């Protein structure tokens, strides 16, 4: 089941630079999208979300952009910090199935000094 895809398994970025993580989805019923960060042996930690009525949501260093026509969203982290090194998951849900999140495979981000 590939309803949510993160095609980049890994991303390396220098400290202070921008990290851009991408996510594509196929189910047009999805109307809410979330990004989670996960360290090894820990649970996913919520970062930021966006509903389909918006095309951008910003929270501190994190900004999520949604392009509904392309069924694409991205997470921008500016500036990247060493503590941002983790796996980032994109997740999506439909209004009639709110708690049933569909996750992407994740992108491993490594922030180098």
């Amino acid at each position, binding site marked *: 089941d590939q309803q949510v895809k993160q095609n980049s398994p890994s991303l390396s970025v220098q400290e202070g630079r921008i990290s851009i993580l991408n996510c594509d989805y196929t189910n047009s019923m999805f109307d*809410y999208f979330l990004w989670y960060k996960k360290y090894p042996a820990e649970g996913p930690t*919520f970062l930021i979300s966006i509903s389909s009525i918006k095309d951008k949501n910003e929270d501190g260093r994190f900004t999520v952009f949604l392009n509904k026509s392309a069924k694409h969203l991205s997470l921008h982290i500016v500036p990247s910090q060493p503590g941002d090194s983790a796996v980032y998951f994109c997740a999506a849900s439909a209004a009639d199935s*709110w*708690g049933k*999140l569909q*996750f992407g495979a994740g992108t491993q981000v490594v922030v180098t000094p």
Partner: protein
Amino acid sequence: EPEVTQTPSHQVTQMGQEVILRCVPISNHLYFYWYRQILGQKVEFLVSFYNNEISEKSEIFDDQFSVERPDGSNFTLKIRSTKLEDSAMYFCASSESDKVSGNTIYFGEGSWLTVV
């Protein structure tokens, strides 16, 4: 910051044995979930629970699985007769409501289940 807590953090069990994974959701949350992640695979939805009944379940959540809220604070996942393929990290999660806007789902640290 309020958090979802899970016990045990790691459990090893023999195939065919029953396992109960326990969770304490965030106190004012009303919706509860179990997810799992098999090593190397995606995080997968298992079940959602509200008002003492299952709201939705995935095809993974067959008759071997059950959930319960035995008291006002705990939320449990029971696997009646474990199989090797049940080995995974199981995440409990909770949310304040089912409203999409402004809501989110918070996850616990996970319970790592190894079936031998």
